[in-house]
């Protein structure tokens, strides 16, 4: 069983040097990043720098509404030009230098610079709340990060889970209905988690007991969840709208910590979902990498035969991991109906389960990485929303594409480097 070398890793479907794994960072590829940075710099220069009128300012507000104002104004054209110049310099450096050290980090910096230039340009003669941007990013990242955590649980145990979308949807629906029927949002959360766990158990049974291809099984769950929730929403919720009026969780503050200027209200005045997101990521990281339970789970996902020989119950571990993953995903789904506006809409998850999957891969199957990726995706969603409000010449439909294009770029650019658990996707035979 391949451990360090992935099957097929020693051939090169790309034009990389022979012997390099697909996606390995050759100096040619690193230079490519440099060229891309230069291009970004040129775009920024022309579109943002020269495209901004002189004499107007871009104002960025860092404090929440109702608090003492902390803001920063930059001249729109000047700011964009400076950032473009930085981009071009960085790009030139990446192209010219010998080593490939920290290429990804530097390219990340380039992206940040480009984004800053974009924001300066978009906010010309207007004001943008950076606080709102950050707060919205965190909130939008919740279903993505929690969904990705659910995926981590399943995939680290060796079961591919593309049913996160269906579990989110089921959690959203059940959370709304239970929350309305019981008049209690906490019960709604529990109900949603239970629905997710049921789907997880179903997926586990299909893939482990009946050895259905895990991608097929996941698709079945997705289709069934979409069909059932839409059907029940059309049949039951239309007739009894009271079943679709759950309350919502109120944001609450962590006393003391919330007093910290700017960061305090951002991080410590939120609904339970944001705290849950950070808490679960921390908990899962600790549990997976610092406990015996986590070690066994990962062993089952990497080399189930060896785990079996040592006495670990492979199938039971997988069942539990997938069901637990479903539980997390179901709870994540309740975010859609119990956090902001209450009420379930057919198909309201809109593909976020798949973006969570991309976050999982982007995060290298690690909860903290998945959180970072989720924040990136959440940011792109939030940014697109805010750009649509500002007066930009880009059509709204194009802006709406951004999260999805970002996902493709991420998956295509990084997948070669990320190694999934070795036994991911393969059913296990006892004996």
């Amino acid at each position: 069983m391949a451990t360090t070398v992935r099957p097929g890793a020693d051939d090169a479907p790309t034009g990389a040097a022979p012997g390099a794994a697909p996606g390995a960072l050759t100096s040619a590829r690193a230079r490519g990043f440099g060229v891309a940075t230069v291009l970004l710099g040129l775009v920024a220069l022309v579109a943002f720098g020269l495209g901004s009128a002189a004499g107007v300012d871009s104002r960025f507000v860092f404090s929440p509404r109702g608090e003492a104002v902390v803001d920063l104004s930059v001249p729109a054209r000047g700011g964009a030009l400076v950032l473009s110049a930085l981009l071009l310099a960085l790009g030139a450096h990446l192209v010219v230098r010998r080593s490939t050290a920290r290429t990804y980090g530097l390219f990340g910096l380039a992206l940040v610079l480009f984004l800053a230039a974009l924001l300066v340009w978009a906010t010309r003669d207007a004001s943008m709340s950076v606080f709102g941007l950050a707060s919205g990013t965190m909130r939008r990242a919740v279903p993505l990060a929690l969904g990705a955590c659910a995926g981590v649980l399943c995939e680290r145990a060796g079961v591919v889970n593309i049913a996160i979308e269906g579990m989110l949807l089921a959690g959203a629906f059940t959370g709304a209905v239970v929350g309305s029927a019981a008049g209690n949002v906490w019960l709604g959360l529990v109900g949603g988690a239970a629905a997710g766990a049921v789907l997880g158990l179903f997926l586990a049974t299909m893939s482990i007991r009946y050895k259905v291809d895990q991608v097929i099984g996941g698709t079945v769950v997705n289709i069934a969840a979409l069909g059932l929730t839409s059907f029940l929403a059309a049949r039951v919720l239309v007739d009894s709208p009271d079943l679709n009026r759950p309350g919502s969780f109120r944001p609450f503050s962590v006393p003391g910590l919330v007093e910290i200027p700017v960061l305090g209200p951002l991080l410590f005045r939120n609904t339970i979902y944001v705290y849950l997101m950070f808490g679960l990521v921390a908990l899962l990281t600790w549990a997976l990498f610092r406990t015996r339970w986590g070690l066994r789970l990962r062993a089952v996902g990497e080399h189930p035969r060896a785990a079996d020989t040592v006495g670990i119950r492979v199938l039971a571990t997988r069942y539990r991991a997938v069901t637990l993953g479903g539980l997390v995903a179901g709870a994540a789904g309740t975010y859609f109906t119990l956090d902001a506006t209450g009420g379930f809409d057919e198909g309201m998850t809109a593909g976020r389960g798949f973006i969570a999957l991309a976050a999982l891969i982007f995060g290298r199957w690690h909860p903290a990485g998945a959180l970072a990726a989720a924040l990136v995706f959440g940011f792109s969603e939030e940014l697109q929303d805010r750009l649509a409000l500002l007066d930009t010449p880009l059509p709204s439909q194009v802006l709406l594409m951004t999260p999805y294009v970002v996902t493709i770029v991420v998956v295509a650019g990084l997948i070669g480097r990320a190694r999934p658990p070795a036994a991911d996707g393969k059913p296990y035979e006892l004996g």
Partner: protein
Amino acid sequence: MTSATAAPGSPRPRSARGPLGRVGDVLLVPVLALVSALVLGGIVIVFSDPDALHDWGRFFSDPAGALSSSWHAANDAYRALWSSSLGSTAALSRTLAETTPLLFAGLSVALAFRAGLFNIGAAGQLMVGATVAAYVGFHWDLPRAVHLPAALVAGALGGAAWGGIAGLLKARTGAHEVITTIMLNYVALRLLDYALSTEAFRRPGRNDPISPPMRESARLPTFDLGGLRVGLGLVLAVAAALGVWWLLQRSTVGFGLRAVGANPDAARYAGLPVGGAYLLAMALAGALAGLAGSTNLLGRSSYSLTGGYFQFIGFDAIALALLGRTHPIGVVGASLLFGVLRAGSTGMQSQTSTPVDIIVVIQALIIAFVAAPALVRAIYRIRTRDTGGTQRFTSGWGA
């Protein structure tokens, strides 16, 4: 080490034939899958029917009443389904019209499966193809002999390009097509919205997202066979099914695709261009999906492109490919079945107010049962000496 996997479509070994013979064997599981799905679907219908639920609440005082109203709920729903899909030549014509795009889309997914790829992007490929075909159809002015083929080819090329993106990404970077095709679906949806909002696509006199109607010279003709209306699109779809069969079973290129699908590492070792196979498979799959949209656009009565055109066809297409065991002829049969379900569902909704989404549930159940023959066998206690394990359609993540 893993269970023996029968490559999709390979003939069963002779010694493991069940009591019904080979045809019976192949059909038994799908038929039972269908029956089970319909039964379970019926149960869902019953338990969402207000009258039946009410009677179940009084089960202990009137058990017969509960059972009879349950039976009526399910029976009425399925009767309505039958009558509006197969009950008359008009209904049959509707069924055949529904079948056409399903058949193309099912072939798209089935072909990709044969190359080891999971094409969830049929919807996006369809939309891009339809958009391109629409433009050719309403904007260009050509004689009929040229216009119609041009529009169809444009649709196929558009879909092929869209599918090719995912194929190229998989070939060059190993990006898993499940994610890329799903993301491309959403991008295509927005692209369609954007296109319909531009001047070029606006229908004169209307502000909603609808294209101008296709010109007469680009429309697909319909043949009237004693009351039964069969569109040329359906004929093309069946021809495509035969073409896919020929490609896969009788051509060198198709052999290459199947080899890559069965074992990419072995194929690579044998010198087959795996990346090229992925690209070709996705491009062809995209072309078929593009034709699904184009033939519908050019052949159905509204002849216009609207927002979200067929955006939910993707899951149907997967179900069809699985139900047909990824064999083109099987996909034809499965498409007819789904055509029946589709055509019948609107009647079911109008006559018994059963929401059309129940069809989605039934489809999910069908896929579940078909993808897990062991499940069906366990339920019905079918004994078979055939040790063919489950079909593995895809492997994990990465190349």
